[in-house]
């Protein structure tokens, strides 16, 4: 199987995000960057699929030269090759999906795996746009039935299951009130939810090897995509702060407060 996996650069989820006083962006000082956690799960799933069925994992990231760090991270986990779409400046979901579409048309993978959302913009759109642009099936919010502490997980079995004829994948999806299972003909687009797998750590030999793995450089011009954004972020603001509450000494006081102050019981 050939699997294309995206790797977006995002702020470390542990970071404290602060809005600049003029609302033009966030304060960059002191921020650490990582691969989007959902994309790391995508890389892991890709690696498990090719470990089981043979094949190749190609990672792609769009952004300035700093996104090579995220590509190297994926390569150190075990991905085989990387594609870097070099572009600085704003990009919206339409632009991102159009670029990935071109990369997919060039690479002809059996599966494209993306994160269900990026933890900075929280949009949850790119995978679905891409599936429509390509005219492929989609299975969003892919999940694992078993617990992430189960034997299956320890054995690193892929949760995305190839059918016997190898022409489709079965995907279990997290939806409201339960789990839905879909079968998508290949090629298809899958987006990952958190409970798909537990990504591996990059080993030291993995990190060493990653240094010599190839990163191909492309640009929106080379791919023939106009990425003029159709979304304008006008300004950012912090949410209103919640008033600090109090600690109560015992349950009787708590119930009294809930009854007489908050009036909720």
């Amino acid at each position, binding site marked *: 199987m050939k699997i294309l996996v995206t790797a977006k650069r995002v702020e470390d989820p542990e970071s404290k995000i602060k*809005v600049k006083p003029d609302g033009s962006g966030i304060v960059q000082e002191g921020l650490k960057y990582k691969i989007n956690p959902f994309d790391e799960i995508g890389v892991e799933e890709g690696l498990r699929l090719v470990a089981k069925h043979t094949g190749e994992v190609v990672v792609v990231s769009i952004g300035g030269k700093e996104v090579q760090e995220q590509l190297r991270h994926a390569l150190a986990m075990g991905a085989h090759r990387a594609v870097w779409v070099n572009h600085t400046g704003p990009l919206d979901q339409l632009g991102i999906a159009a670029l990935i579409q071109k990369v997919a048309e060039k690479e002809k993978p059996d599966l494209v795996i993306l994160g269900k959302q990026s933890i900075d913009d*929280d949009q949850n759109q790119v995978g679905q746009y891409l599936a429509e642009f390509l005219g492929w099936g989609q299975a969003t919010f892919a999940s694992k039935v078993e617990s992430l502490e189960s034997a299956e997980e320890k054995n690193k079995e892929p949760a995305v299951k190839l059918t016997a004829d190898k022409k489709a994948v079965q995907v279990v999806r997290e939806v409201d009130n*339960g789990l839905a299972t879909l*079968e998508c003909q290949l090629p298809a687009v899958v987006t990952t939810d958190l409970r798909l797998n537990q990504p591996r750590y990059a080993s030291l030999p993995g990190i060493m090897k990653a240094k010599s793995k190839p990163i191909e450089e492309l640009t929106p011009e080379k791919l023939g995509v106009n990425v003029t954004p159709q*979304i304008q972020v006008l300004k950012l*603001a912090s*949410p209103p702060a919640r008033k600090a509450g109090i600690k109560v000494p015992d349950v009787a006081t708590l*119930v009294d407060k809930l009854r007489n102050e908050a009036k909720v*019981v």
Partner: protein
Amino acid sequence: MPIVLIVAEQQPDGHLRKASLNAIGAGKQLADKAGAELHIAILGKDPAKVVDELKTTGAKAVHVGAAAELEHYLAETYAPVLSTLATELKADYVGMASTAQGKDLMPRLAARLKAAMATDITGLNGSGADITFTRPMWAGNVFAEVKLTTPVKVFTVRATEFAAAAGGQAAAEVKTFAPKIEASKTKFVEFKEVKSARPELTEARVVISGGRGTKGDFKEIEALADDLGAAVGASRAVCDAGWVPNDLQVGQTGKVVAPALYIAAGISGAIQHLAGMKSSKTIVAINKDAEAPIFQVADYGIVADLFKVLPELRAELQKLK
């Protein structure tokens, strides 16, 4: 006149998903600001049951597309039908609640309509042709005002931030149409519903959530929930471990709730969890660790073992009855 089209959702059990009413509420706000007409669309195998409910929520028209192939929701069959409808109506805005279906379907529909999209909007600003959306980023640490510049604009609605449209209004015109079904490369296999006698997490007046501090023992949480007619929620750590079903996860990447009362037991209060419950009216935190970040958002905190506090809380509440 501009047109706002809101897509309603029928649950597998045939009922209207309640969040659709909040999306209609948002649609009405948008229609007022944009000087537009509000329309509703509903697709399914047999949507008749929900049409009656939708008819009186204040829309100009309800567009009903019924077909056997629409029994099980698939983005690939629903998106083309809605795209055709939106194009024929010349809809300027298409919106839906941020349910699992809304999040799966709207971007695919937007791609088809060559539209830009705003996810999980929490507010609407401006008037006439100059409408902008407010939406959360970075797990609700930032709220952005965004403007979509494509002719058609698509959005999903964070249900907790918009009042549900009330019923009992002048009946809308019901327009049925025959959906043209496109072949899908994806097949529905099965849906395993997690059945619960408790109210739905996103609709409950009281939510009691457990975290890793429960060590997987939810008995006390469930007992208190049953006493209060409350829904049960969980942190991600608990869902990952497989202690409770995934769809109980509250947070940035789970469900967003805003009940009158939210009780967090044995939850540390990571920003990703707070993103899903910070808008609750009253928050109670029960945690052994006085430094746990959850206390920074809790109206009432109690530093103690949850296995001691929860039974005491039940006993005290019983006394009130």
